[in-house]
């Protein structure tokens, strides 16, 4: 088909959808719709992971981000009852400042991407690295220390959240 393989077609379609949904997150007026578009973006990114043969990452991405974190986002937004009428409108110069700041960020990102052309990327391991078995083996042998450190970090975040959530500290 037009000289592209199926993988390339899938990549193109998924990328288009991911960018489209990401833009919808920003442009949609209703915050609940924004969250739902963000969930769709996560699905597209999970599809990209699948294309790269990283099944574990794809499913964990859906379970953790779409299935847990975004549900909590949705909770908060639904309970806050935000809508266009009650939202305070920002003044014009704040919009201009935000536009300039966003533009600078885009500038930095484009600059970084331009540098990647000269970089020599060496692929780590085989193309099967993303399967559950290989990923587990690598995580628990070569990258054991960073992996365990990350778990301590998560634990600290959890303890912090519980401390903030407590009404009174005995």
């Amino acid at each position, binding site marked *: 088909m037009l000289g592209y393989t199926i993988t390339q077609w899938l990549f193109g379609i998924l990328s288009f959808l991911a960018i489209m949904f990401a833009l919808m997150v920003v442009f949609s007026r*209703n915050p*609940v719709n924004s969250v*739902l578009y963000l*969930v769709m973006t996560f699905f597209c990114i999970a599809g990209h992971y699948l294309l790269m043969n990283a*099944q*574990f990452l794809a*499913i*964990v991405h*859906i*379970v953790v981000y*779409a*299935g*847990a974190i975004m*549900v909590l986002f*949705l*909770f908060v937004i*639904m*309970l806050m009852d935000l809508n266009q009428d009650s939202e305070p409108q920002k003044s014009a110069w704040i919009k201009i400042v935000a536009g300039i700041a966003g533009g600078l960020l885009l500038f930095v990102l484009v600059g970084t991407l331009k540098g990647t052309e000269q970089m020599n990327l060496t692929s780590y391991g085989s193309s099967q690295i993303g*399967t*559950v*078995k290989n990923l587990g083996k690598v995580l628990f042998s070569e990258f054991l220390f960073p992996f365990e450190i990350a778990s301590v970090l998560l634990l600290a975040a959890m303890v912090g959240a519980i401390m903030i959530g407590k009404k009174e500290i005995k």
Partner: protein
Amino acid sequence: MISFVIYKFVVCVIVFGLSLAVAAYSTWWERKLSALLQDRIGPNRAGPFGLLQPLADGGKMFFKEEIIPNVSNKFLFILGPSLFMLTALMTGSVIPWGKSFTTEAGNTYSFQITDISIGVLYLFGVVSIGVYGIMIGGWASNNKFALLGAIRASSQMISYEIAMGISVIALIVTSGGTLSLSEIVEQQDAGFANIVWQPLGFLIFFICALAETNRAPFDLPECESELVGGYHTEYSSMKLGLFLFAEYINMFISSAIMAAFYFGGYNFPWAHELYQTLGLHDGSVWISIIGFGAFFTKICIFISVFMWVRWTLPRFRYDQLMHLGWKILLPLSLLNLAITVVVEYFRGNIHL
């Protein structure tokens, strides 16, 4: 290639039809069983033993007046029940319904829509997406009872997913580290069913399955005395039907998962002796069909247990529900995992 595609298409249609048929007749059996437990007769007007009752109910659902609240977000209001139904039906695709069989031409066909190597993870992915149907539906109703019901439902489902996941990790350790459902079932053919090694894990899984399907005693999201109808308060006609129907499909699928994970799926005791007596050789289609019969019997027993629990136990209070989920089931499932790993190490299934 073409015959393979046609075969897979047929399997998809059969699994789809089976899910709907079992869900429909679960409603009939639920009424009959509750009548039995309460010393009543139950539905007996439509057809013999009231067997046509599900058709009558379905017809009623379709022809009732459909009301969409004026102020709600119409698209999300329709999306809610559709999404809930979609995720309920999606889970059936990785369940191995029977042994694979070989035709005389040498082609092997499996009684499963797809055997992906991360089947267990796929199940969890789909289950975690199922929350969205309820949340979107509850919010789009623009009704405070619906919103409260949706929030109860989703926080309950998220909480119990954790204990469920950890109990399944213990099961995977017992099954030799495979995430494919067909391999989990197949390795129970040689030895005992997993329930022998995972009694506590099964108990945790069963309780979590009750909570995940929003069945009594965990049916707080739709508890009438507090929330009118919970997240489907504003729904009418077939949209309400989809919500109720998807609950029965979820029940069917979780029964199937329990039967496959812990009770050997399509395997049953002395199966090989039976096949030998009948003169069936490996790969015969009859072995697949008998295995499917055994699997289906187990599923029906589990569905009945779900209903038995519903008509026996009173509803939990919400803080009791959260207490049970986080402070009892989660530590128990972690303990179960630790014990499993030690036991499997001494059985020689884990190599360090």
